[in-house]
């Protein structure tokens, strides 16, 4: 049974847009979805997996290498054919052990056969795909440290128990959580390219539609998936063509200036804000089929690219979105 189709998710346009943008340009660097319970956060991530175009990879390779030459030397790969694999979307469960995340000495083999073998972890499987962390704000500190390091270097280095192993680990980080249960460390917050806030729809009709679709899916998953397959495939085709168009989208001097002015006006730390804003706007332009980035594109991606980079005002919980919107209006007119 397939997951609930992405296109059948009612509303939550911000979240859907952010996920589509990272699917177009993984370099944007991940999505953080913060919001109430039962608003379809994990449903969207699982639906996204079905939407992503497949990747070409070596069949037996534990890190999904694109070519035979890239297979790490520690991996004993017997099946070296290039096959199409679905883009990996790997769950990092809360409370996963460090061994399971980075990989470790294969204890079974060590104890039973006396063999020193490396057992790859979740980071290896997530290479060239997505790493999804539900309840990311409850993730233990030592795992956060580890993820920060790997996300920055794109490489997983394992130096323990007599092993010395490295393998590529480039993935898009998708996190979701409920802010009432705990804050995210600013360093990790900064790693997410886009951040969206989801709330339960207030409008009764929207809520009814959500329940109606979910109920239809629960009663007859196969029929429901068939009905929505077309919409999902259209979206996938749009993502694929946007990926091709991405390289040709122009971003003029004026737009760069707009980005910089926005970030200065908001006082966001570092330059990652500008870079993400530009990349996201470019991906959106590609998705829309436009040849160049316009102010409208910037306006539409600015809240999700910048809201988590502001200095926090402790008394003002919901304020960052409003602040971004206000500044966007001031700067872009």
């Amino acid at each position, binding site marked *: 049974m397939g997951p609930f189709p992405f296109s059948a998710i009612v509303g939550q346009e911000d979240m859907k847009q952010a996920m589509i943008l990272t699917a177009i340009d993984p370099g944007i660097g991940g999505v953080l979805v913060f919001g*109430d*319970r*039962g*608003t*379809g956060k*994990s449903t969207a991530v699982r639906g996204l997996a079905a939407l992503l175009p497949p990747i070409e990879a070596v069949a037996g390779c534990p890190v999904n290498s694109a070519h035979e030459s890239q297979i790490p030397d520690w991996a004993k790969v017997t099946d070296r054919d290039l096959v199409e694999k679905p883009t990996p979307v790997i*769950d990092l*469960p*809360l*409370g996963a*052990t*460090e*061994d399971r995340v980075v990989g*470790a*000495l294969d*204890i*079974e083999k*060590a*104890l*039973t056969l*006396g063999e020193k073998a490396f057992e790859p972890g979740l980071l290896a499987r997530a290479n060239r795909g997505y790493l999804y962390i*539900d*309840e990311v*704000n*409850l993730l*233990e*500190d*030592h795992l*956060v440290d580890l993820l920060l390091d790997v996300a920055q270097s794109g490489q997983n280095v394992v130096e323990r*128990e*007599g092993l010395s192993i490295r393998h590529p680990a480039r993935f898009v980080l998708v996190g979701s959580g*409920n802010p*009432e*249960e*705990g*804050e*995210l*460390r*600013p*360093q990790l917050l900064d790693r997410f390219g886009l951040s969206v806030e989801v*709330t*339960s*729809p*207030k*409008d*009764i*009709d929207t*809520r*009814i539609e*959500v*329940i*109606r679709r*979910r*109920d239809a899916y*629960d009663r007859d998953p196969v029929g429901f998936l068939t009905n929505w397959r077309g919409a999902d495939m259209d979206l996938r085709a749009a993502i694929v063509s946007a990926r091709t168009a991405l390289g040709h989208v122009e971003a003029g001097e004026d737009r760069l200036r707009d980005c910089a002015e926005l970030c200065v006006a908001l006082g966001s730390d570092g330059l990652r804000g500008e870079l993400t804003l530009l990349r996201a706007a470019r991906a959106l332009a590609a998705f829309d089929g436009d040849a160049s980035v316009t102010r409208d594109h910037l306006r539409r991606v600015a809240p999700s690219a910048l809201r988590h980079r502001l200095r*926090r005002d*402790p*008394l003002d919980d919901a304020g960052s979105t409003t602040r971004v919107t206000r500044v966007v209006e001031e700067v872009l007119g």
Partner: protein
Amino acid sequence: MSAGEDRWQRVNLALACLALDPAAMGGIWLRARVGPVRDRVQKGLETALQGHILRRLHPGVGDDALFGGVDLSATLAEGRVVRTRGILGTPSVLIMPMAERIKSGLAARLAAALDAQNGLSLIALDEGADADETLPSALADRLAIHLDLAEQGLSDAPDLALDPVALAEARALLPRVTLPDSAIAELCEVAARLGVTSLRAPLLALAVARASAALSGEDRVETADLTLAVELVLAPRATQFPQSEPDSAPEEAPEPDQPDTPEDQPDDVDDKDRADMPPAELLLEAAKAMLPPDLLARLSAGRAVRASQSASGTGAAKKGNHRGRPLPSRAGRPGGDARVDLVATLRAAAPWQPMRRQMTGQQDRLHIRMSDIRLRQFEETSDRAIIFVVDASGSAALARLGEAKGAIELLLSEAYARRDHVALVAFRGETAEVLLPPTRSLVQTKRRLSQLPGGGGTPLAAGLKAALELALFTQGKGMTPSIALLTDGRANVDLAGMANRAQAAEDATAMARAIRARGWPGIVIDTGLRPTRGLDALARDLGMPYLPLPRADARSLSAAVDASLIPA
């Protein structure tokens, strides 16, 4: 029928509904102390759930039990890998006693397992004594039926009438139960009016309504079924008293004398539907009767409770086996979080090799037994940062600023002995100032403290704000902040720096609540000549103990502060 019998009747129906399709409903959150009433419910459950696999889980259950793993003792004995199957791998009904003790990590894993729809359901037996001890909300949201049996007397609770044969018939009927088109709309509307934001709740209510229809032998959901679903699923989740007309639903029929024709019904609903389906108003009446009496009390307490529960977030104190200073390995069972120390394991096994070779007759392999396994251990000392917020206003200076300084110095030397970080915030005049960012330097702190001048107004809110910002900063660095507030009185300067007593008090209260929501430990020390009225109220707002500075007894002060600053 008395209220108790009425409630018991509902419990009976709830169990019967659950028994029809446990997986669709997620399960039951049963809040009751251990006792004969709960025993009866459990007995009823066992009767009702015949044919399902029932498994008991412990709140401390580990990952190897949940997800399966390598059975190390069998593997070692047989010389090949033997795997065990995890509890979550088989469709079953999980019974979790002491559910209020579930950690957020386990809750997240169980929630993910319930979401995967592999035929799992959970009966959470919550034995929490007070409102703070409760099931993690991630799980509560996914369990359809919430029952609270705290008030249930045994005399009103006869054995439950659950007939397996009748249940089996109803179960056969369940897939054929149809739903009137308006039912979804009405459940959504009731949920919205009760302030139930999660969209899972109406879905779960639908499942209960279907089961209830099947139980009464109908193949169509009727008014009574929806009412039961509201009572069991939506009402216990309510976060507000229902308003008669929500602002967000202007399409609601405005005429009170025509309550049975809400205009948001789809056009294809025929007249029969309108006549026999209840409008949301009627369902709301059912919900109102079921609202927990302490709803308001819970609402005001809610935020603080939620924040303080999630102690597993950033920077909390930990005894880990992941990082920190290595300790000697110890013997133990691998699995879950533990990591095997290979070298120590081999070292433990080495002396026994000749003897084991003789015993087994196998010469060529390494003989390792379970008792040889050694696990790694680490000791992680989470850095504590004590933030002293000192009132240096004119009144304090006159009173006992000197003594307060002495008390702080005493605390400082103890903090130094434990290698805690210390930070100093002072407020006087119009604003607060961070005199010293978190440091371990005792000398520097003492110097800054002795130079602290006194005088001016009491900008308490500004002081608290500075403390909050500093605490957030230290938390971001992985430390656990504690706050010690030393003041002698009431705020008279507001956040904007204006001398406005009313606004100042309001700002101080708002800041105090913002700090309380973080759930940090702390203490409020009254440095006044005599206990100041209003300070204990502030301490309550902060969620911290209140302590009048004892005269000339800095040592007992230091002991008291120490006791209340250590995170639970």
